[in-house]
């Protein structure tokens, strides 16, 4: 860079300032989205932490007062939150485990030589696309209703007739409906993994005398494992938030039998209008999710390289 001496006040841009300006130009297009997300997620979250330190009920005007860690100690002793955490864990683990197993089985079927693969796949993803509130109502009223539903009628010859699934086995019902919804999701991801497999490798294994089970365990499974892990991770981040089907099927009941954390939050915040307590639940939910997601997402980052190009 040539600097012209005595050019009277006009300063040549230095390399550093050019680099800085260039850096800002590079970042500038990023800013609107970045600022937007911060405004609508990070600042509200900071406020949630703040509110969680106050006793505040919207139905009682003037009830806003500092209460320190009261909301948190109440959480520790409260039966409802323990039930909700337990239900959240049970629901998430069973839905993910069952739908991964079913998804793997169905993906394997769709990856083999069967007639009508394309149509099968198309029909298979429908449960995932159906509006969750609509799907839950269809299950509850037209399929499971003990009087008019189709399934109690179909199952009567098998000695299972007229069972009031929603009220007698509420958690089983919620898990079943969620499995119905999430199996196609797992199937899609695992199928993508299976299709990335080189058929020649399997053929070679067959020629070498490996049976179907051996080549599945030794060749296919290691290959699709990252896809299963990705599906399980993304799936659990969604299933932890299950609200729609619980609202429609059981409304968290009977009692609190199917109340999970999102539903408890809904009850505390919008039925009780207990802002302080709801905020404390929010903070706890974030801490729990962060632990799961940090571990999971780091794994995902290492599995699927999210490398910048240059």
């Amino acid at each position, binding site marked *: 860079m040539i600097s012209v001496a005595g050019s009277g006040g006009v300063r040549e841009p230095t390399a550093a300032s050019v680099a800085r300006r260039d850096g800002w130009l590079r970042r500038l297009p990023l800013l609107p989205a970045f600022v937007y997300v911060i405004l609508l997620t990070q600042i509200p979250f900071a406020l949630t932490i703040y509110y969680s330190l106050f006793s505040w009920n919207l139905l009682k005007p003037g009830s806003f007062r500092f209460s320190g860690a009261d909301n948190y100690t109440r959480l520790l002793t409260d039966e409802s939150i323990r039930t909700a955490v337990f239900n959240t864990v049970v629901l998430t683990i069973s839905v993910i485990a069952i739908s991964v197993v079913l998804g793997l089985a169905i993906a394997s*079927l769709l990856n083999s030589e069967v007639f009508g693969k394309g149509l099968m796949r198309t029909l298979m993803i429908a449960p995932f696309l159906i*509006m*969750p509130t609509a799907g839950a109502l269809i299950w509850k009223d037209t399929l499971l209703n003990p009087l008019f539903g189709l399934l109690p009628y179909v199952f009567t010859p098998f000695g299972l007739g007229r069972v009031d699934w929603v009220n007698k086995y509420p958690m089983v019902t919620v898990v079943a409906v969620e499995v119905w919804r999430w199996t196609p999701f797992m199937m899609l991801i695992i199928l993508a993994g299976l299709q990335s497999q080189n058929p020649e490798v399997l053929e070679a294994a067959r020629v070498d005398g490996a049976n179907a089970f051996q080549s599945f365990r030794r060749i296919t499974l290691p290959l699709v494992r990252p896809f299963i892990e990705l599906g399980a991770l993304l799936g659990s981040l969604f299933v932890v938030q299950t609200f729609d089907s619980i609202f429609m099927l059981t409304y968290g009941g009977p009692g609190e039998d199917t109340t999970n954390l999102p539903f408890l939050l809904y009850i505390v915040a919008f039925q009780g209008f207990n802002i302080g307590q709801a905020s404390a639940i929010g903070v706890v939910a974030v801490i729990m999710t962060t632990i799961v997601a940090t571990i999971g997402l780091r794994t995902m980052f290492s599995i699927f390289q999210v490398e910048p190009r240059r």
Partner: protein
Amino acid sequence: MVGGRLPVSKVLWTVVGWLVVFIFFFPVLWMWLESLKTEPQAASSPPTIFFAPTLAEFQEVLSGDFPPFFINSAVASIGSTLLVLILALPAAYALAIRPVKRTQDVLFFFISTRFLPFAASLVPLYLLARDLHLLDNIFALVLIYTTINMPLGVWLLRSFLLEIPPELFEAARVDGASFGTEIWRIVVPLIAPGIAATSLICLIFSWNEFFYAVNFTSSVAATAPIFLVGFISGRGLFYAKLAAAATLASLPVLMAGWIAQKQLIRGLTLGAVK
């Protein structure tokens, strides 16, 4: 692993496969069948299997109070999707074509907000909406759905941009063209299919959203899923109408999902699986 040379096994696995698919698809099929029945047929015991289909319930739903809910859903979904595209495209472009040192961190930040529980920001957003008189206002849902879909938009669009050889951008870059021109004239045409796929995925998520809809709206701005809440207490009386409403409410996403089938997997995994 399954399937082999013999047609016998192919036939066998085909039968098994179709059986499984039938079980999973059946609730959807049943919803359609119920929607084409009359109320007495829909709530009969034993269930009616053979009947003369009628569109009466669809007519009833469409001429009743359902259309405003449907329109609200359309406004919230389309509005938020457009907003996502406007904000996410420049961001994705910056992250893909002009990466900076902390690109990875920024990407990680975006995705972390997608999985932040509702609980994290629900109460302050509710109070803010209340104070700004945005409760039961569709604009509040547009803003919230934009937040929900922003990480998806940024990640997906970036993954599509990464597929285009950088030389193409450089070669096409007109001297002195503004950033806006560059995006509009070069980037948008190059990744048009990616933009379409991203929009469909955003539409799917916002159309089906229920939690914020049920808490932030009541009547004026209520969306399609809220219309279905009205059927919860209807004990055995309105099955056909319920099925017709559920069919109509699910139709746009079902269509979008089926059309974008190839992109669905990519969208759902935020671009990780292609």
